[in-house]
């Protein structure tokens, strides 16, 4: 996005242009951020710059689960207290944050970095499915939990993975698909309702 600010100092101009490239930031927001930083204390600005630099220099993908890590293995894979016999398969690293926030899951993860989406040209080889299979063959895993999104792409990915895991003989489970908390039954769609009925449980 080109922002016309030719009358301003070059350094200011440059930062505005860079900010304007970020998602959700338009020309005006870019200007506001730039002028805010211009007036902010020097330490704060340098801390931001350093944080951005280290984001790129010091992060990599965990060699086991492909989560974002700062060493060879991510904090979750390094943690000895986690249950190594269960792997939860998610689409994005952000999904781990959501699951961890709930605090209910104690096992390991595997990040696919996407979902199979044929109409966008994303196939099996574009996401980390082969790596998952390799991992399952080499490690002692009792259960794979498929936690891909309940969208068409996520469902397809889950179905595909469950099919190729079948010959290995590991138990595969899928996150329950039903009604989200705080919604009304009236607005639910057929797919959700049919799965909610199929997956109903005895009320305790």
């Amino acid at each position, binding site marked *: 996005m080109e922002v016309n600010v030719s009358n301003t100092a070059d350094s200011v101009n440059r930062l505005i242009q860079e900010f304007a490239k970020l998602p959700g930031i338009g020309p005006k927001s870019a200007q506001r951020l730039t002028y805010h930083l211009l007036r902010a204390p020097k330490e704060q600005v340098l801390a931001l710059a350093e944080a951005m630099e280290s984001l790129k220099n010091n992060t990599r993908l965990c060699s086991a689960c492909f989560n974002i890590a700062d060493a060879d293995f991510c904090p979750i894979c390094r943690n000895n207290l986690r249950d190594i016999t269960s792997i939860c398969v998610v689409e994005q690293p952000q999904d781990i944050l959501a699951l961890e926030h709930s605090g209910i899951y104690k096992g390991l993860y595997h990040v696919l970095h996407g979902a199979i989406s044929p109409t966008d040209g994303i196939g099996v080889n574009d996401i980390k499915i082969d790596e998952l299979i390799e991992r399952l063959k080499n490690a002692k895993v009792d259960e794979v939990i498929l936690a891909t999104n309940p969208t*068409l792409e996520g469902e*397809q990915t889950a179905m*595909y993975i469950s099919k190729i895991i079948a010959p290995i003989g590991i138990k595969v489970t899928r996150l329950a698909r039903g009604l989200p908390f705080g919604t009304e039954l009236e607005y639910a*769609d057929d*797919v959700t309702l049919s799965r909610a009925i199929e997956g109903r449980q005895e009320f305790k």
Partner: protein
Amino acid sequence: MIYESLPVTQFRSGYTLNVNNMSEPRNYKTEAIIIKKTKLGEADRILTLYTPRLGKIQAVAKSIRQPKSKMSGHLELLTFSMVSLARGKNLATVTGSQTINSFLPIKNDLKLTAYALYVIELVNQFTGEHIEDHALFKLLLDVLEKLCSEKNRDMILRYFEVKLLDNVGYRPQLRQCVSCRAQLKPTINSFCPGAGGMLCPDCKHINHFCYPISVNAVKILRLLQGCNYNTISRLKINTELDLEIERLLRIYIKFLLEKEIKSVSWLDTIKKQAEKIQ
């Protein structure tokens, strides 16, 4: 409010309405099949809808990616819904949605999903926005319904491809040679995508990009051009012939669109995997 006043069933009886030369009302309702979705911003999506009276249209669905969205399930890909839209400056906004048919069998089956995604990608690629084509809408709806119920799925896909080409104006000429206009003899003729049809052995030198096609394949293609679902549900052909027709149609479609259909490679992956298991 011309759309609102029309009963839902009326379009099935063949009613058509030319909307190209008048502006859309502020709020309107239409049946639609969701054929594409792209993410927009934090929680919105841009949907591409195929409708009976407005052709292909795009609309913004706000907050649809949040778990509490009331519309998300009604606006997933491969869903036939009644959609309420509000005209916007650029794109319309979806204000409400109710599923008519969610094609559950398709969504519960990996292979069927791949087939159906291929179908909607073809429709998306071959159509322009705001061009009404009721017959094409009917074809799309029918093929999705048939994929749910019929066993003869590969044949349904071939039927769809041939009928789609008819509809969008690329019906291949299969009865006579496109160069010398002579009736084709039952021998190995050639199919030439660039010429839009068959070339007889005498004329095949005029275009080097042509593919030999067996007599039986031509017969099946001709049959597909003229038949309906009842016929194809009874039609049984061997795998080799099916593969030949599939290959030719793919070549022709790729030539017309000047690009690969992306979902083809996924379709092939799934087919190969199914063969391996068998």
